[in-house]
């Protein structure tokens, strides 16, 4: 009996496909997410929109809060660790968190390195903006990837940008010779062995969700239409007027993304979405995606 194998980690991520993973800050919110049909919840201290508004250092959630959320739901509980914060990740692993998100939404802890995720039994999901970043995270042992988007904005353009970039780069890769692939790897900062894997599959070798700025059922459907396996919704649900209704609607939209009739039906009467932010209105150094 072997625990923590790469197949156990990536296989677990395969089970999320077609689903919605929701940010929650309390046990009550976690119950709402589970009841709405979320495939997992992400436990965190503050949703990205509040982190953005309040500033300061954003850290791993309080272990007490994580335990309360674990006790409240039967679905998997994920939690965020700061980029490079090996100790936060170890604490989350010890708490029995099902997946660790090494996340740019929190304040980075290590200016040089990401966590060596091969050293952990708990699986990791990491953000990417393009193929090079995705390949580096996979080389470090990430069992799941999500496009970064720009968290806490309710603005889907960055998520779309990152998914479009990723798709275009994977498409370019498929026609390359080995020599071209090696120099392309150098250009985008990606290990050749990982690029070979991606070339062979014609897609990332791990599950890829969309994140950052998804606020409506239509946003979720859009990301699925672009080829994402599922979506993370952060501030979009619990910063909206009717979280229960919106959560259910986004879950249905994520599965029925290619059925406009269903999308129209579930988009009816949801009340106000979260307030959005134009990306141009955010100073360059406050963008989370560059972390």
């Amino acid at each position, binding site marked *: 009996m072997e625990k923590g194998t790469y197949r156990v980690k990536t296989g677990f991520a395969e089970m999320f496909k077609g689903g919605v993973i929701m940010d929650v800050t309390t046990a009550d919110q976690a119950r709402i997410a589970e009841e709405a*049909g979320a495939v997992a919840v992400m436990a965190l201290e503050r949703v990205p929109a509040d982190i953005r508004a309040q500033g300061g250092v954003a850290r791993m959630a309080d272990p007490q809060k994580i335990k309360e959320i674990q006790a409240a739901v039967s679905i998997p509980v994920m939690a965020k660790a700061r980029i490079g914060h090996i100790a936060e990740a170890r604490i989350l692993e010890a708490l029995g968190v*099902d997946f660790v998100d090494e996340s740019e939404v929190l304040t980075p802890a290590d200016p040089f390195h990401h966590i060596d995720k091969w050293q952990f039994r708990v699986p990791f999901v990491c953000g990417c903006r393009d193929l090079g970043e995705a390949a580096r995270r996979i080389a470090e042992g990430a069992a799941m990837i999500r496009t970064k988007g720009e968290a806490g904005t309710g603005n889907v353009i960055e998520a779309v940008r990152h998914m479009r970039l990723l798709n275009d780069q994977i498409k370019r890769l498929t026609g390359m010779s080995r020599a071209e692939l090696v120099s392309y790897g150098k250009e985008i900062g990606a290990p050749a062995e990982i690029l070979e894997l991606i070339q062979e599959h014609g897609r990332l070798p791990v599950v890829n969700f969309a994140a950052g700025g998804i606020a409506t059922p239509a946003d979720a459907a859009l990301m699925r239409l672009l080829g994402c396996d599922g979506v993370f919704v952060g501030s979009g649900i619990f910063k909206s007027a009717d979280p229960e209704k919106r959560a259910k609607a986004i879950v249905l939209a994520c599965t029925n993304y290619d059925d406009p009739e269903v999308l129209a039906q579930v988009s009816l009467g949801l009340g106000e979405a979260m307030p959005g932010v134009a990306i141009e209105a955010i100073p360059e150094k406050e963008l989370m995606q560059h972390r």
Partner: protein
Amino acid sequence: MTVGVLAVQGDVREHLRTLARLGVAGCPVLRPEQLAGLAGIILPGGESTAMWRLMTQTGLAAPLREALAGGLPAFGTCAGMILLARRITNWGETFLGVLDVAVERNATGRQADSFEARVSANGLGEIPAVFIRAPLVRQMGPTVKALAWLGDVPVLVQEGHLLAASFHPELTGDARVHDVFIQMCRKERRWQHA
């Protein structure tokens, strides 16, 4: 012969790939009308609560339950086993409730305790198995047969036209368990046409 794979959520692609390896046509099933003409249906791994919410809201749950009661062969893996089970020992609701077993959800613990192992199966020898936050069978009705064990725990069970596994044969590249199901579908078809 076409075998459907319930496609509301979960590892649908891996099951379709395994069917293709066996030379069987597979078809994702999301809407009730897609049940017509199937020789069998696979209920994949995923989150059982999420899958059930989606099935009830898209109107698939009732017609699927009816088809299963009418003899449509089904194979559930992990969450699929939970969907089929008549009773869930640690959850307040029952889903399709057609297979006479009581299962415990997340019986193998949280993800850190998920594991790979080899299980011994009747007539198949040892097969590689991936257990992910897996359900385990805690009680079996008199007409349920255990086909594979992990130690002394039954992890692959059959009752008539229904087959269920605690593990994920679709993640290993070993198609023997799926082949058992395909044989069940063939047999059921012959019987229906007799």
